[in-house]
C-alpha cells in the first residue's frame, strides 16, 4: 500500500540517515484499537530537511515518537544511520538518543527547576562530555541562537520564543545526526515562528538532518520535502521547490482590485 514517492530499497542505502520499512503502530485507547501508523515506508537522506503534514489524529506525532525511540512500533523496521534500532530495549535507545537524536517539542518541555544553561548542558553531561566542554558548547549555541543573556534564567522567566530556542539548543548540544521536531512553532506567534524557522534553516544549511511535524504550511514549505500523512499512511511525498513558471508574488494568491 505504498504511495507515490521515491521507491524504497530492501536494505538501507549507505547515506540514508533514516530508513523505515513497513512500520505499524496501533493505539489502544479505551479498548478500541486505532491504527496510528500503517505500513509506513520512509527514507531520509543525510542532510535532508523533511516536513510531515497531515490533519490532527493522522499519526504524525506517533510517527515521530517511533522514529526517536520514545515509543515502540508493533511491527516494521527502523534503521538509524545504518544500524537497526526498532527492537532496541528502552535503555539502549536512551543511550543512543544521547548522541544521535535531538528532540524539540511544541511546548519546549524544559525542566522547570533548572536554569536554561543547566537544561542545555544536561544531555551533554549525560553523554559523558566533561563539564567544561559542555559549557563551552552551550555558550556557543546560545550565542548562535541569540539568547546569551538568558543563560541563568529558569524557564519560567523566559518568553515562549526564548524557551523554544533553549529547547533547540538542548536538542543540538551533542550534534546529533537527526533532529526531530514536533510542532516546534505550534505555540509561538508569527515573529517567533519566523525566527525559529530561520534558525532551523541555518542549521540545515550546515548539514543537519531534520524531520519535523507540522500543520503550518509556512513551516512545511521551509523544508526540502513534504510528506503528507493521512490516517496513518503516507499519501504524498513531494519535493518543495521554487514555483514553476514565473512567480508573481502575492498576485499568485490574491488579486488586489480597487
Amino acid at each position: 500500500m505504498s504511495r507515490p514517492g521515491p521507491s524504497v530499497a530492501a536494505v538501507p542505502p549507505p547515506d540514508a540517515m533514516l530508513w523505515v520499512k513497513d512500520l505499524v503502530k496501533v493505539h489502544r485507547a479505551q479498548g478500541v484499537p486505532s491504527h496510528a501508523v500503517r505500513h509506513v515506508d520512509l527514507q531520509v537522506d543525510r542532510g535532508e530537511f523533511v516536513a510531515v503534514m497531515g490533519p490532527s489524529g493522522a499519526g504524525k506525532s506517533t510517527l515521530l515518537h517511533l522514529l526517536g525511540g520514545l515509543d515502540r512500533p508493533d511491527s516494521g523496521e527502523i534503521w538509524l544511520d545504518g544500524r537497526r534500532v526498532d527492537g532496541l530495549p528502552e535503555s539502549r535507545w536512551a543511550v543512543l538518543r544521547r548522541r544521535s537524536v535531538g528532540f524539540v517539542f511544541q511546548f519546549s518541555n524544559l525542566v522547570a527547576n533548572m536554569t536554561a544553561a543547566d537544561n542545555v548542558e544536561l544531555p551533554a553531561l549525560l553523554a559523558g562530555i566533561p563539564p567544561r566542554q559542555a559549557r563551552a558548547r552551550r555558550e556557543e549555541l546560545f550565542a548562535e541562537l541569540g539568547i546569551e543573556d538568558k543563560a541563568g534564567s529558569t524557564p519560567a522567566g523566559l518568553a515562549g520564543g526564548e524557551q523554544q530556542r533553549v529547547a533547540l539548543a538542548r536538542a543540538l548540544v551533542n550534534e546529533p545526526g537527526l533532529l526531530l521536531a514536533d510542532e516546534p512553532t505550534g505555540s509561538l506567534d508569527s515573529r517567533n515562528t519566523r525566527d525559529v524557522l530561520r534558525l532551523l534553516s541555518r542549521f540545515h544549511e550546515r548539514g543537519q538532518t531534520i524531520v519535523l511535524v507540522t500543520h503550518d504550511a509556512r513551516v512545511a514549505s521551509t523544508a526540502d520535502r513534504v510528506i503528507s500523512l493521512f490516517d496513518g499512511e503516507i499519501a504524498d511525498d513531494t519535493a518543495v521547490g521554487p514555483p514553476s513558471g514565473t512567480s508573481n508574488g502575492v498576485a499568485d494568491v490574491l488579486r488586489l482590485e480597487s
Partner: protein
Amino acid sequence: MRAVLRWELADLRAHRAQAALMVLVTAVVAVSLILADALLVDATNPWQRIFKQSHGSHVWLHVRPGVNTSPLARLDGVTAVAGPYRTAPSTLVRSAEKVSLELRAVGPALPAVSRPLVQTGRWLTPSVTDGVVLESSLAHSVWAGVGDDVTVRSVDGTTHTLRVLGTADTADQGPYPDWTPGIGWVLPATLDRIEPDPARTQQAIGLRLADPAATDFTAQEAVNALGSAQVAEVSTWQQVRSAMDLGNRLLGLMLGVFGLVALLAAALAMAGGAGGRVLAQVQDIAMLKAVGFTPAQIVRLFLYEHTALAVAGFALGSAAASLLGPLLPGPLGQSMVLWQGQPDHLDAIVATGFGVVLSIGLATALPAWRAGRVPAVPTVRSDRPAGRMSRLARLALLLRLPPALVLGARDAFHRPLRASLTVSRLAIPVLMITVALGGWATLDGFQQHPQRVGLAAPLTARPTGLDDASAQRLLNRRPGVAAAYPGVEIQALVPGETTSITMRALGTSAHPYPFAVAEGRGIRDTDEAVAGQGALDLMHVSVGQWVRVMAGGTPHILHIVGRSIEPDHNGDMLSVNLDALEGPGGLPRPQYYALVLRPGANADAVRAGLTAASHGRLDVRPTADPADQLGPVRVVVVGLVAVLALIGLVELVTATSHALRDHTRDVGVLRAMGLTPRQIATVVVTGTGLLTLVAVVVGTGLGVVASDALINLQGRASGVGAGIAQTPSPWTLLLAGALAVAAAVCVCVVPARRAARAPVTSALSTF
C-alpha cells in the same frame, strides 16, 4: 553521574522545605533509636555489671533461724554458697525518714560470692564496732554518706547509733525503695548487740549456680530440701535484674518503640511525598527519557535523592545524640556515657543507620520504580470527572449548599481508590497520635483516680512503739482521714513454685479495703483473695481457682475471686483480709495502716498532723506511687505527638499538592463556567478538608481501639494487669481532630488561592 547530580541539586533546591522537613524527621528518628540502643544494651544496665563484678548468687533464700542449710551446698548445679548470714529486721532513722532495714551479719572479710562492691568509704573493719555499710540505693534514698551517724531501732524499740563506714552495690536484691527492706551490712557482733533474740532473726543464703538457666529448678530443689515451712522467702536473679533494670528497660523500650513507630510513619510519609513528586514531574521525567536517561538511571535518581536525605538526617541525628546524649539527666545520660565507652558502640550506630536508611530506601523504592516506568511520551490524562452527579450531590444542591462546597466534595471522592489511599495515609499519624494521647490519659488516670489503679491509700502509717488501740484512735480521729485499714505484708511460698510472692492482708471482713478489682469481684469471705496479674502468672492460676500458699509457716488455702490492679512489685501481690491470717493468738498485729483520705484532704497536711499528734511514734509516709517514675513517659508522649504531627503535616502537603495538580487542569474550565477565584479556591480547600475530616474520624476511631488494646497489653505483660487503659477524653479528641482539619485548611489555602488566580491560559495549557 554528573547529569544525575545536576538534576538532583536543582530538584532539592526547588523543594527545599520538604527536603528539610524529611531530614529533620529522620534526625529525630535517629536520636530516639540511638538513645534506645544505649538503654537496651545489656552492658549499660546496672544489674549485669554488678552481678559479674560481685560474683553474684543466682538464688537467695531467707530461712528460719536454726535451720541446717548444709544440704543446699550439695544440691546439683550449685557451685558456691554465700552465707548463711544472720539477718535481723530493724528500722533506720535518719532525720525524719524511717526506712525498714535488714541488718546482715557478714564477717570482716569480704565474701567471695555475692561480694558487696564498695563504692564509697570502706568495708567493715573489726576496729570499728558500730560500723555499718549501707547498700548504695538505700544510702542514696536517706541521704546517708560515709561518716554519717544513723540511728537504728530494733524490733523491740531500742535504738542504736551506727556509723556509716561506706556504701556498696550488690546484686542480691533490687534497689531500694522498689525492694524493701534495704540492706545494711554489719559485723556479727554488732548484729548480736542490736538483736539479741535469735527467734527474731533469719538466715540469708545465696546459691551460685553453674547454669543460670537452671535457677528455677534449683530453687525448687532448695525449698524441698529444707522444707517449705522453713523457708520464708525465695528470690531469683531474674527478679533482681528486672527490678534493677526496670527503669532503664522501660525507658529503652519506649524510646525504641517510639523510634520504630516514627520510622514507619516517616518512611510512609517519604514514600507518599516521593510518589507525589513523581506524579508532579511526569512531564519532566518524560523529557529526561527523551534526552537520553535510561529507566534505570531515573529509578536511581529518585532513590539516590531520598537515600541521601535519609543519610543526612541520620548523620545529623546521630551527631546530636552523641554530643548531647551524655548531657541528658537521669538514666538516659548515664547510659549514653557508659555506652560510648563500649568498643562496639560505633558498630551499633552504623547498624542502626543502615536500618534507617534501608527502611526509607525500601519505602521510596516503589515510587522510584514507577518513575522509571513513566512513558517517554507523556499521555494527557483524559479522566475527566464523571458527568453524572451523585444523588448526594444533587441532594446537597437541592438544600442550597454553596456549589463550591458541593464541587469540592465531589472532586474529593469521585475517585474512590485515590481518595481512600489519601485518607489512609493521613489516618496513620492520627491513629498514632491517638494512641499517644491514650497513654497520656492513662497516666492522668493514675494521678486523678488512684483508687482505680490500686492506689486508694495515698498514705501509710506505721506505728513504732505505739499500741494498736492508740494508733487506731489517733488515725480515726484525724479529720482528713476517711478510713484506716490495718495491714500486714508477708512473703508467701506457693508449693511447686520457685519464687515467693508477697501476701498482703489488708482490711477486715467488717471493714474491707477497696481493692481495685479489674476482673471478678472483691473479697467477701475469709478464705477469699484477689491477686495481681503478676501473681496469677506466677502461680499459674486464673480467677476462680483455689491455691495453697505457705505464709509465715502456716498453710493457707485461698479462693481467688478477683484480679486486682497492682502497680507495685510487678503485680506479684496476693491480697486477703486480715481475718485470713487469724491464728490462735487472734488477729496478727498490724504492721501498718493504709490511710484513705477524705476527698479534698491534703496528704501532706494530714501527714504532718498525725506525726505531730503521735509525737513521732506514728511513721506516716506517702505510698510509693509508680506513676511518679513515669515522668519520662510523659516527655516521650509529647515528643511522639510532636513528631507525628510533623509527619502528618508532610502528608498533608503531599495530599494538597496532589489535589492542586488535579485542579490546575480544571481551573480554566471552572473559571469559564463562571466560578470566581474565591469559589475555585474553596473547591480545592473543601476537597482536602473533607478528606482530612474522614481521615481524622477513621484514625481517631481506630486509634482509640488500638490505644486501649496496646496499653492493656503492656499492662498485662508487665504484671500490673489489664484494665489500666484510659481512653482520651472526647473533648481532647475533638480538639485534636479540629486542629488537624484546621491545619489541613491552612496548608491548603494559600496555594489554592494562588492557583485559582493563575492566568487562565497557563492553567489551560499545562496538563
